[in-house]
């Protein structure tokens, strides 16, 4: 196997990794504030893919408008889920693991709601390009992959910028540091949670549309987020750069394992590696380990 092959595989890995990253940042944002794994995130991504599909198919919106519509729609949906399924638990100071169950109920609900209303059929976005790939020497790159990479990079950059450089971002980081203390600093945790779910939902919207555009839309696509979840853990739960780096790394590792070892073991390797990473670095690559405080 030669250099062209390696580069081709690497590009594939980064392309997959960027999808995982878009999904993983939503997890990570919520985790950083609420300290629980939001398993309903996959459901929101799925809804994003549907919103994008219908804004294109029914209203004839161009792709950028479909993405905006999905961001808006998913942001609202994520906020609604927070209000309905998590907020009552927060008011009662329930332990994080109760949230997980509530999230799972939500995820079951969303998937089946779509099956019951829209139906189980696959939906396809209209093709964007007639010529599917550009060739550079012997390497072929899918235009969709490229577009996806660009959109992912832009949205991830905007998100990181928002968190790092703006006042809202600072409030979010303060809240992530300590939910209760932040209220002493004049930050209203309710507002922050509201914003975080909105942002996470918006990112889910982008991820959903890109996923739907590149692949296909059906009620069970939420399951792919399990991988994004692994990516977020790789990077360290609650760390935004960690989620991005971890996801891209996972994408690359997966394709490399498949390219140089065996494609039979691709998924197995991802999960075994997950356990391995946790054993070696119990808080992921970028995660902060915490010592018990007495």
């Amino acid at each position, binding site marked *: 196997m030669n250099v062209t092959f390696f580069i081709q595989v690497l590009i594939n890995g980064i392309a997959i990794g960027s999808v995982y990253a878009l999904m993983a940042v939503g997890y990570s944002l919520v*985790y950083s504030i609420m*300290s*629980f*794994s939001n398993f309903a995130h996959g459901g929101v991504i799925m809804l994003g893919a549907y919103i994008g599909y219908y804004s294109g198919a029914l209203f004839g919106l161009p792709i950028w408008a479909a993405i905006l519509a999905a961001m808006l729609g998913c942001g609202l949906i994520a906020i609604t889920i927070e209000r*309905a*399924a998590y907020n*009552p*638990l927060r008011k*009662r100071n*329930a332990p*994080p*693991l*109760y949230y*997980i*169950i*509530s999230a*799972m*109920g*939500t*995820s*079951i*609900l*969303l*998937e*089946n*709601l779509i*099956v*019951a209303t829209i139906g189980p059929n696959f939906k396809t976005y209209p093709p964007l390009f007639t010529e599917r790939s550009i060739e550079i020497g012997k390497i072929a790159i899918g235009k969709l992959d490229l577009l996806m990479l660009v959109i992912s990079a832009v949205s991830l950059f905007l998100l990181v910028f928002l968190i790092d450089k703006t006042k809202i971002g600072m409030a979010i980081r303060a809240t992530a540091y300590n939910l209760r203390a932040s209220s002493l600093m004049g930050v209203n945790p309710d507002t922050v949670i509201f914003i975080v779910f909105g942002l996470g939902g918006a990112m889910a919207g982008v991820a959903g549309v890109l996923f739907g555009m590149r692949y296909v839309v059906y009620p069970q696509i939420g399951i792919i987020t*399990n991988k994004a*979840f*692994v990516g977020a*853990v790789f990077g360290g*739960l609650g760390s935004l750069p960690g989620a991005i780096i971890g996801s891209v790394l996972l994408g690359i590792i997966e394709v490399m394992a498949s390219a140089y070892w065996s494609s*039979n*073991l691709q*998924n*197995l390797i991802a*999960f*075994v590696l*997950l*356990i391995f990473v*946790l*054993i070696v670095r*119990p*808080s992921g690559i970028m995660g902060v380990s*915490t010592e*018990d405080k*007495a």
Partner: protein
Amino acid sequence: MNLSWYYISGILIFAGINLMAVQGLSLLTGFTGLFSFGHAGFMSIGAYTAAIVTSWLGAPFYVSLLSAGLFAGLISLIIGRLTLKLKGDYFVIATLGFGESVRLLFAFLESIGGARGFTIATSAHHTSLFDVVLVNAIGLIVMVNLIHSKHGRNLKAIREEELASRVIGIDVFKYKMSSFFISAFYAGVAGGLFAHYLLFIQPAMFQLIKSTELTIMVIFGGLGSITGSVIGAILLTALPEMLRFLNVWRFVIYGILVILIMILRPKGLMGGQELRLISWTRRLISKRKGGQA
């Protein structure tokens, strides 16, 4: 409508199989405070072990159940050794990774049928309702006795306050390992019952959704309540069947119910309370006796 006992007993057998796994998970989650999304993995290990033991070695059914539990337990010791030091969600995720790995591994192993599945020898015992009830009854007695001992109390202490438990001399890691082992043992036995009920198993039967369903049963019934686990397992196994009249909407309702229980009764149906069936019946009996006298 005329209900068929054959149908209902079929549901009850599954409820019993789930209950066996849920009992173990209840110890882990409700009494030790550890969440696992990998117990379908232990169930599948038990199922394959039991199936192989009866089909290839011709061992009796109950021997196969025991080996299913022990083998699942053995694996849990290895996994526990590696992951029980992880905190909170990281442990949950590690178990999720374990469950998925096991499933993918079974699908990969052609010698035991791979993805196409494993068929149990037709001469093997077929799990009956009686078996399920017997195994669960034994399981319950063991579990209740365990919980009402100092070992059970130590587990509860770990659930409540890990640091304080260490300070009063509880070897937290060792107790977590025991709890993980016992829960894996129960899941393994459940897998054995499952395999011999269907007489055919395939890796696809042990997906992540199975693990989460088991955990939902524990929490639905109420953490820290064995009675709750019994109710949770039976009710939630039967619920999808009872909701059949809703057609495609039945799992929408199922999802809503799960959320509602979390919101309205965050401690689950029983929430740490045990239904004192025995004292209740005794009171009833003594009252009746009093009435006759």
